[in-house]
């Protein structure tokens, strides 16, 4: 890549005003570091991943509000995880996590288990308890 070709697509960038270092060659073919403000192709790929997570989150939120799901799947996607990642972070089996997605099972979870989920999401345990008791309905 030549220095002139280092992408500077700042408008669509996912770097939030930051720039990334790349290595590129000057006129004589000598390498040097060069800052890039963003690249359209890369940004499109990032946005796809984020949009997919958002869609899953919305879907899970509808399931929660409709009483079909516990708030856990919604929180899971909001904090950019999937079942596998949540299992790894909480140290719980996937089948247990899937059970906890059912509202009637979630309603009976112990504070200790809720704490494990709360830690995974970086939330206070009280918040999950409030969801469980139905005193909080917003994420």
């Amino acid at each position: 890549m030549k220095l002139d070709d280092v992408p500077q697509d700042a408008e669509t960038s996912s770097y939030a005003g930051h720039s990334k270092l790349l290595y590129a060659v000057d006129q004589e073919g000598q390498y040097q570091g060069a800052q890039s403000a963003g690249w359209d192709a890369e940004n499109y790929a990032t946005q796809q991943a984020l949009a997919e997570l958002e869609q899953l989150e919305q879907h899970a939120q509808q399931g929660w509000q409709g009483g079909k799901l516990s708030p856990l799947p919604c929180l899971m996607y909001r904090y950019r995880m999937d079942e596998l990642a949540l299992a790894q972070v909480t140290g719980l089996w996937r089948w247990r996590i899937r059970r906890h997605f059912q509202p009637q099972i979630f309603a009976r979870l112990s504070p200790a288990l809720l704490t494990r989920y709360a830690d995974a999401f970086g939330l206070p345990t009280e918040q999950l308890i409030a969801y469980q008791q139905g005193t909080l309905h917003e994420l």
Partner: protein
Amino acid sequence: MSFNHQQSAHCETGVMSSLLTHAGLPMSEPMAFGLSSALAFAYLPLVKLSGMPLIAYRMPPKHIIKTLSKRLGVRLHTATFSNPQHGKAALDRALDEGRLVGLQSSVFWLPYFPPEMRFHFNAHNLMAYGREGDEYLLSDPVFEEPVRCAAEALQKARFAKGALAAKGLLYWLDDVPLEQDWPALVRKSIVSTTRILDGMPLPWIGIRGIEHLARKINKLDPDAKKYNRLYLTHIVRMQEEIGTGGAGFRFMYASFLQEAGVLLGDEHLQAAAQELTQIGDQWRQFASLCVKQSRGKDAGLGMQPIAQALLAIAQQERALFKGLALWAKQRK
């Protein structure tokens, strides 16, 4: 502590370059990358990221730190902690002793990262060079400037659980030998890289892995539009975003070959650097093709041109690394 922050393309090479330079052995980031033989390719279908296979363009995390320390004869001090409080105390102690400390952490919990870039990747590397009140002074190699981070947030990031969990890993370098046998180091590291890329009997590793990915792309069902879009953009993300990725690493290795060529006065390495620069450009074009197809702007050409582009890259990388293997043999 007097310390010069330097922006890098990749976290682990950036940290090693800074730690060595700080210890009195000036080392550019591409040199740290090349001398640790970190260039690679791997398609790992069993390791899933958001349901997609892991595609790596370099050796696994910690490879660079360990290999480079070993080759340079540096004593690498590392520690992980089962108790997060001990991990914090050890970091504070090292900083009070005036050390520059390497840390492994999660990207997701570092508040200074832009929200769009915060994913659960636990093997990010950065350095701490001091603390003030309740804040740590950090040098994160992928950022332009040094940053500050609240103690609580850094603690959460260092002890995030899950895949590749850091367990609070901290490290520093002791006894950095300032005299090095550069020609031998360059040769040895290049031999390793040629073996990783073109000498593994596994179909997912090295250039065979690139060919494997090309076959996978060719086999995508043209009607599964949404899956294809997520699959192709996943490849692009693994290549360009996660750890600077494919093209970036090809350019960085080319820069290493160029610097090594100057150091050794060797024209073959300089020529190889030029060739790899062109291959890096093709990796970027490949990423563009993936995105074009995902956006539906490929004029209905389908997957075949994308797979072809990847096969062409594989062929050229094979020729290049066969040439380098031969070069290494002749210099023995």
